[in-house]
């Protein structure tokens, strides 16, 4: 089982969280001209690589906040967690 350190609540078990996918994906700017390809990349296309992966989780059975987690997709090692508002460094 994963143990995820919620930046608001501390270390909690995976059961309290739900997954939200790749956190590095950015929605195209509102009001700007967006090509089909840009929408494609935002909605569908993903790198999904083996190794370090920044992803969104929601502490659903806890503080209900969305957070960012850097996890290894092969070993499940978790390196870093951030609040949703914090930029990935």
């Amino acid at each position, binding site marked *: *089982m994963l143990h995820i350190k919620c930046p608001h609540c501390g270390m909690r078990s995976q059961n309290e969280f739900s997954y939200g996918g790749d956190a590095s994906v950015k929605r195209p700017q509102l009001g700007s001209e967006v090509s089909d390809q840009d929408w494609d990349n935002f909605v569908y*296309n993903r790198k*999904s*690589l083996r190794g370090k992966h920044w992803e969104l*989780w929601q502490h659903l059975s806890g503080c209900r906040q969305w957070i960012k987690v850097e*996890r290894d*997709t*092969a070993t*499940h090692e978790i390196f870093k967690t951030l609040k949703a508002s914090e930029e990935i460094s």
Partner: protein
Amino acid sequence: MQKYSVFSLVKNALSNHENWDLAWKDPTPKKEYDVVIIGGGGHGLATAYYLAKEHNITNVAIIEKGWIGGGNVGRNTTIIRSNYMHDDNALFSEFGMDLWRKMSQDLNYNVMFSPRGIINLAHSDAQMNIYARRGNSMRLNGIDAVLLNREQVQEIIPMADFSENVRFPIFGGLMQPSAGTARHDAVAWGYARQADSMGVDIIQNCEVIGFDISAGKINGVRTSRGDIKAKKIGLCVAGSTNILAEKLNMTLPIETHLLQACVSEPVKPVLDKVVTFGAGHFYISQSDKGEMVMGGDLDGYNSYAQRGNLPTLQHVLTEGIAMMPFLSKLKMLRTWGGIMDMSMDGSPIIDKTHIEGLYLNCGWCYGGFKATPASGWTFAHTIAQDRVHDLNAGYSLNRFNTGYLLDEKGLGTKTWIS
């Protein structure tokens, strides 16, 4: 090639089974092939077989990082079905059912195809309506479907929980009588043996390091066993699709996720159908050895681990026990996990790419095993003719761009969120 039959079995028994021919060779890679298939799983082996058989292209290599049949074809729950509603999925899968029925004869290899039927259980009136609609769609496409009421289901699977006061009472179910199971390893080995006998080189322990592309054309592949030239290369690597896509500078509508399965200790014959739970995600059948073969949800987050986490297994088996309470008495024999190429609409991709000579076969989600023959057949056609067949026209790569999604379950994008 030695033909397998009862006579060859008797003959070899007399010499203590020491004189069987090798089922396939272990060649060193040549410098150049007409077609290179990357990935020695079920789909890759089937593709090579149909390239040779249907298109007479035998100067073909299959290159495989590990050993053939060691990925998802060696670790699935062996279910074969075509109970789809949408035309593209239904016609493709039903074409595959025909290949399954003939496969043991065709390959001279007993794949133990067992068309025992699959029942999807319904747990509400609304779900019965949905199943009636799906069943009608199936029948319009020439696929057998039978809508069962509660009593009919009870007659077929009396061991399920038919008590009145359960959270998800059984209202009925949709059965496809011609669906079933097959011996998964035999499928890989049967295709490998026949492909090899027609001249295909099966090259194992050969990892793809990079690709040789110039002016938008593929020229070859760089591997751990040297460079191999080919004008046509087919990708059939399931859960490793994203890794190879990165080497090709492609970003695909695919995420790599982990799916677990498990088997119980073997017990006496109790279940002669494949049954799925309709209020969650759980499916079960009984193997010839007597083990209950079970599976369900993805672990739910991107993973290349090839081994699962316990919370998902607990969740899946809770559903199983809700459906068939006797399962709680069984000991678990084995659990395992495989990595799935989850596409964003839940349907696969068999298509050409923007790189000339590079062909893509991926996105099989949970349903790769049953698709093995149809996938190999259509992918071989796509590679040999350099154009898609009608059967896989709906499985295009650009459908995510054009909006012609093939969303069987109506889940929208990110099928892992359900």
